[in-house]
């Protein structure tokens, strides 16, 4: 973390004023946002009339809740229901860890490597001249299941499910440096291979769909109660008593079945929603939204609990120092400063701590893959670290503040050679022991993407200053561009 001058606060205020209007959406857009998944589903099967008719009759025309919601997107409950259903966001975007320190690896692949989770079996990212390919467990499984579904086959048998469950546990990434082969650009050759990373979830039940959570979801059903189902039945009875409703329903049904363009389907469903408003009293609408929001709040608590269940990960990482071309008379090329490849093995354990806090513990060992001149052993370093993340809601009136305490003990047995040892963003070159402690309070300013971090750091030695203990305090602000990009 770096200090910034108070002038930044003026910039912050001005930028916030510009950022806020990005949230604004028209009534028509929010109404469409509610109905868009349904419209898209109908458009997808438009060519197959039998499937389209079944979807309409079985589900769409008698599912009144979205129609009620479409007319109430500006209410508090309406906004909550839209947000809880992610109707205003693209499904598939990863959640980012906020306010954590880089001192201790959290064991989450997207967080660890900084990738957005995508739905492909392999994701490719490029940063500068580095190109990274990463298998994505969720994407891999989705790609496989989608692929098989497209062939009208099924992955529902036990053996297939076991295979998919096993695949979910693994993650592999390869990073290449396109600069390594002079003018050829990215070739994917071994010489360009910069890093290999493999990760296996030894224990991971964070997926809410995991069979282990069946009893949790059973308990949720009991806790949620049938208030929403009751008002749904009452609404259906009310609507059925109105002689004008059946003509509206029949008309919309016919328009959708006879639609020759996607736009006609969209218009018909929007008209259905608009016409439906006439058959629903404000009282019934409010009661339905109340019950729906209550249901989703209960469900959100379940999702949050499951997302924090413990996870144990084993990681292996191979780092290859850049290869330098030797003088013309020498062949083959030699590694820079005789630096051998480095293998790192790491165990990461994350589990809930007190209240809403999370605890992360990790231990790692790094070994050179071979001994080179003057090297007495292959062990380079070992580390053990821990971190506690405390979410502090509404501190000083700011939401989602987070307090993090992290500690690291490291024993560096050899000079790092080609692959640097980075602690808190600072390379460590000198061998010996190192103790490090950091407490950080991070206060985001609403959902603007700005945050103000305060930190206190202790290090048993500071490589860049002098060989003594030091306390340091910092205050600054950071800007998360994803908050803007992701809107």
């Amino acid at each position: 973390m770096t200090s910034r001058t108070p002038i930044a606060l003026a910039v912050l205020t001005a930028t916030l004023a510009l950022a806020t209007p990005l949230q604004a959406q028209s009534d028509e857009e929010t109404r469409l946002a509610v109905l868009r998944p349904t419209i898209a589903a109908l458009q997808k099967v438009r060519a197959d009339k039998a499937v389209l008719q079944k979807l309409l009759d079985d589900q769409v025309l008698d599912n009144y809740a979205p129609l009620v919601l479409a007319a109430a997107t500006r209410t508090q409950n309406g906004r909550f229901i839209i947000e809880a259903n992610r109707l205003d966001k693209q499904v598939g975007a990863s959640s980012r860890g906020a306010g954590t320190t880089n001192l201790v690896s959290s064991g989450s692949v997207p967080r660890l490597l900084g990738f957005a989770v995508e739905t492909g079996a392999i994701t490719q990212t490029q940063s500068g001249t580095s190109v990274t390919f990463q298998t994505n467990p969720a994407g891999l499984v989705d790609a496989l299941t989608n692929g098989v579904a497209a062939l009208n086959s099924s992955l529902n048998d036990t053996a297939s499910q076991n295979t998919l469950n096993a695949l979910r546990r693994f993650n592999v990434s390869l990073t290449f440096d396109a600069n390594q082969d002079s003018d050829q650009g990215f070739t994917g050759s071994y010489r360009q291979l910069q890093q290999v990373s493999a990760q296996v979830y030894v224990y991971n039940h964070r997926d809410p769909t995991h069979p282990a959570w069946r009893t949790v979801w059973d308990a949720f059903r009991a806790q949620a109660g049938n208030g929403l189902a009751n008002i749904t039945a009452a609404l259906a009875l009310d609507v059925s008593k109105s002689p004008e409703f059946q003509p509206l329903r029949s008309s919309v049904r016919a328009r959708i079945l006879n639609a020759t363009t996607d736009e006609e389907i969209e218009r018909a469903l929007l008209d259905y929603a608009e016409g439906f408003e006439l058959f629903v009293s404000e009282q019934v609408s409010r009661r339905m939204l109340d019950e729906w929001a209550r249901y989703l709040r209960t469900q959100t608590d379940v999702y949050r609990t499951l997302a924090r269940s413990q996870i144990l990960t084993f990681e292996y990482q191979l780092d290859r120092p850049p290869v330098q071309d030797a003088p013309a008379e020498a062949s083959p090329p030699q590694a820079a400063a005789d630096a051998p490849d480095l293998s790192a093995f790491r165990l990461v354990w994350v589990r809930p701590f007190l209240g809403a806090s999370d605890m992360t513990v990790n231990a790692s060992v790094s070994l050179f893959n071979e001994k080179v001149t003057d090297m007495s052993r292959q062990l380079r370093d070992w580390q053990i670290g821990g971190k506690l993340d405390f979410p502090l809601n509404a501190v000083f009136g700011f939401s989602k503040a987070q307090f993090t305490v992290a500690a690291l003990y490291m024993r560096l047995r050899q000079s790092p050679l080609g692959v640097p040892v980075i602690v808190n963003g600072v390379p460590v070159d000198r061998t010996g022991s190192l103790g490090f402690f950091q407490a950080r309070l991070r206060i985001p300013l609403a959902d603007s993407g700005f945050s103000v971090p305060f930190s206190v750091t202790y290090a048993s030695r500071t490589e860049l200053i002098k060989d003594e203990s030091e306390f340091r305090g910092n205050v600054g602000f950071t800007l998360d561009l994803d908050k803007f990009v992701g809107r």
Partner: protein
Amino acid sequence: MKRQPDGDLQIAPGEVVTVTVTASNTHYLTIFSDLQRAEWTIVEPVHQVSHVAVQETRSFVAGASGSEAFALTLDFVRNQQGATHPQAQYVIQVRGNREPFTVTKQIVPIPPFPIGRPFLFEVVP
């Protein structure tokens, strides 16, 4: 049980109506509303019927006259990426004990969740 021209279901007084809900590739998140007049009898509580499917069966006895109604809310558990299983679905079967006619409805994951599915009956002597 039979279907009326307006789409409502017609049942006879005292007819036993059985509702079976089968969830595939999702945790079972079906909630039954109360009935307007009758009471539910749980024929089979939620139980596993295959590696990926779970089922529940309830029934009620139609009253002497008037209307009857119930609704189901059906939800789909989403994974860490917010996606449902591509083959997740519910199948609802409603049948009476007087006629061979069975109503079958298939519910697939289309947000917003949960999805509501009402069933209306007219009791006709």
